[in-house]
């Protein structure tokens, strides 16, 4: 039976798709058969971030409508074994995702996958609600910035009241906080909310902190999940987060300013 994890945030542009790609890849690297589903109908992007945009033939909505089988629509990742991508369609029909249709696809996937990652669109419209509805766990991607934190709190409220688990009265959706674009230098300078501040406000367990990194843009330019760039801090932070998601106790890294020599500090080198 697969575990369904939604990657959500409320606010756009905080790194949901980047996170979906990296967490999905990380789980597959650890040997778990994983599918990543793009729920952003009309604005698909996961295929680009995963570098499989030219291999899209059928999509999520085709499968729901019975125009293609799940097997036909799933794209097997070329770099990572056990990893599959289900792209979103480019249709503008907002009601293309029906609850029954989504449920059937998830049930079919659950039969031979270990993890299903649902990459949610921004906002709290139908697509975002659908991505959250069937989730067992949620990774709430947040930037240390006021609008993102507020939206994350909104999303937590929705997870607690509108998910299937909430409706049937099962154990609530397990929530994880993933803080991205973190800059310890700016935190020290008092210009950015600290990890502790955000944890304090949202009051959910911390899954990981991904530092602001040029590697993320480089990875998306190349269509390669940043977790594969294992020499970079962002890639390493995602690998740590995957490990924690699998229940390992891993110390948080990249929360402090890297030590610079006295000479650098005085001269102002960066």
């Amino acid at each position: 039976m697969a575990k369904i994890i939604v990657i959500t945030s409320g606010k756009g542009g905080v790194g949901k798709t980047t996170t979906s790609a990296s967490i999905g890849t990380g789980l597959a690297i650890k040997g778990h058969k994983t599918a990543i589903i793009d729920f952003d109908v009309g604005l698909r992007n996961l295929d680009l971030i995963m570098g499989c945009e030219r291999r899209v033939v059928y999509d999520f909505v085709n499968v729901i409508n019975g125009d293609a089988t799940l097997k036909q629509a799933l794209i097997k990742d070329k770099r990572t074994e056990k990893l599959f991508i289900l792209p979103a369609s480019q249709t503008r029909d907002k009601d293309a995702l029906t609850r029954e249709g989504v449920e059937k696809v998830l049930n079919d996937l659950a039969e031979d996958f270990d993890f299903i990652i649902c990459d949610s669109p921004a906002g709290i419209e139908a697509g975002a609600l659908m991505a959250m509805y069937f989730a067992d766990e949620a990774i709430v991607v947040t930037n240390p910035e006021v609008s993102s934190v507020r939206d994350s709190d909104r999303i937590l409220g929705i997870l607690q009241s509108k998910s299937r688990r909430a409706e049937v009265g099962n154990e609530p959706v397990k929530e994880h906080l993933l803080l991205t674009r973190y800059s310890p230098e700016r935190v020290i300078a008092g210009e950015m909310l600290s990890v502790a501040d955000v944890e304090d406000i949202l009051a959910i367990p911390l899954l990981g902190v991904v530092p602001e990194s040029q590697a993320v843009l480089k990875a998306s330019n190349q269509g390669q999940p940043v977790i594969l760039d294992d020499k970079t801090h962002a890639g390493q932070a995602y690998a740590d987060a995957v490990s924690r998601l699998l229940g390992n106790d891993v110390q948080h890294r990249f929360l402090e300013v890297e030590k610079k020599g006295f000479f650098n500090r005085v001269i102002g080198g960066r």
Partner: protein
Amino acid sequence: MKLFDYFHKDPGTQSASTAKERLQIVVAHQRATRNQPDFLPEMQQEIINVIKKYVNIEQDQVSVQLDNIDNCSVLELNVTLPS
């Protein structure tokens, strides 16, 4: 410049604490309304409109609150009538 920064931190740039305070307030408010039914704001407005038809009151002189006590929902309506 860097050397100067090292000894002198401009309090004006300490904006993170302002952000935290503002967030704490807005999130507390958000959570208080989290378990409200979706129709409540509209119902509140309609109740206020009805009262306004008979009594000259301002918006902020009326509070409508829904509380859940055990299995029972209590709708509390508070109107400050002008003397």
